[in-house]
């Protein structure tokens, strides 16, 4: 079995980041878009932890913990905003966000 190198982690996190990115761009449901953004943040975490492991250096792991905390705060505010939006429009579909166009 080949050992797992930093390159593997890099590819994994790049794949996860791309899945999140594509999700944000093509999905139409606000909640799913929001989940895709969380996916991107977690891709970053994999990257940070992998390099923290490789350099035997704790900064990356601490950073990852901060990212998790910030993502939680973001989720609280994001879901709050989605809820407020839903109360006004009765929908969570991006295609129906049409009040303001360029």
């Amino acid at each position, binding site marked *: 079995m080949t050992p797992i190198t930093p390159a593997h982690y890099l590819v994994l996190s790049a794949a996860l980041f791309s899945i999140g990115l594509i999700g944000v761009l093509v999905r139409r449901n606000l909640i799913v878009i929001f989940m895709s953004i969380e996916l991107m943040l977690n891709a970053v975490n994999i990257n940070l932890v992998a390099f923290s492991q490789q350099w035997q*250096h704790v900064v990356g792991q601490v950073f990852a913990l901060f990212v998790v905390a910030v993502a939680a705060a973001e989720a609280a505010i994001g879901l709050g*905003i989605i809820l407020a939006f839903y109360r006004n429009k009765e929908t969570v579909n991006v295609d129906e966000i049409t009040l303001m166009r360029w």
Partner: protein
Amino acid sequence: MDNLQAIMPMLIVTLAAAATMLAESFRLKDERMPLGGLGLIGLVGAAAASILLWNRNTTSFGVVQSDNFALFINFVLVAVGILTILLSSQVIDREELPAGEYYSLVLFSIAGMMLMAAATDLLLIFLALEVMSLAVYVLTGIRRTDAAGTEAAFKYFLLGAFSSAFFLYGVAFTYAIVHSTRLEAVALAVAGRSDVSGPLTWLAVGLLLVGFAFKVSAVPFHMWTPDAYEGAPTVVTGFMSTGVKAAAFAAFVRVFLSSFEPLRGEWVTVLSWIAVATMVVGTVVGVAQSNVKRMLAYSSIAHAGYLLVGIIAGNASGKSAILFYLLAYALTNVGAFGVTALLATRERPRGDLADFAGLWHSRPVMAALMTIFLLSLGGFPPTAGFVAKWYVFGAAVQEQLYGLAIIGVLTSVVSVFYYLRIVVLMYMTDSRAEYEPPRLTATGLATLGVAAATVFYLGVLPARVIELATRSIDTIF
């Protein structure tokens, strides 16, 4: 205790925010409390702390550096905060916004902005960015029952979180190359090693650039700006178009002109194209708007382009020009949005261009104030906007960036068209009978008057402030 010196300004603002929040929770129903006053005290305290720290170049915890650069930004932010709070009281009453939440969110985001300007570690810059942004997302949607407001908050939130992910990915790659997130370590590593210009470095610099470009609303990452600015309550728009921009540009300058300066050759071309696109799109699309807030949003995109020219020039005069520009732009834009906010009524909250028709006949003082702010945005002498543009383009010419300077001047000329359109509308058309704009209150008049006077002062006698700005950039490099 030594360690706390450099974070004193943010600490004071944070305490004021916490006090406001507590006061609100102990407030009896229908009891009136001067919550904004608490905020003002905090901001004045932060300004005093910043004055005491001036020239001391203190560092806290190794990652917060209150050098003159950060302190200058602190003064800009305090000015923005005080003007915003003074203008807000009337709007809060009119739209029945939750006062305690409103003021504490404004203060928390100012604390985040100050931290962002002073942070010298990418981790801390990220945290400060989030403290600032999360508060501003909520402020954007603080009118919970307003469909446009929640829609704006939502768009702003989604794209903001999206851009944070890019920024973070860039930080992760920087960490991978440099083994540290400290800016000085990044600078050392990038300057000292020849092997750093691999694909990982490209990714790191590129992703950080995208993250910052989103926050300063540079084209093509500006899509959220007009919607967020239009949907938010107008005073909040004034606040976020100036405060967020000042903080984001401060961190932008710190990261790109101190840490990534050795890699300049790799990012300067991309940034030049972004700056050109930002100036052109901000100006051209702005001409087509029929809503004042949307028009000012595009104007703020164009101004981000002019500021980027200062970063691209990258020399000492460019950096001090950025600081002066941020101050001039902050006062002017808070003023312009302030007039728009005070003109709005419950029935007409959106700031249509038509609401300004004949304003000179019904509310001459407001029309005069708006004219001053618009002329400054357009860069007419003798206003602050003119001097700011003069210095930014001057810095570009010094570096032989003639193309950028010419595009900057040309777009400024075109932008005058849409600023003057409002002026013409105010003075040369008849007011419409069915719309009676509200009267200017004493506070509103005093606040906007001071802002307008400062805009004139900076336009006529800029030397002292320019000198302050020049001395502020000594310490970051």
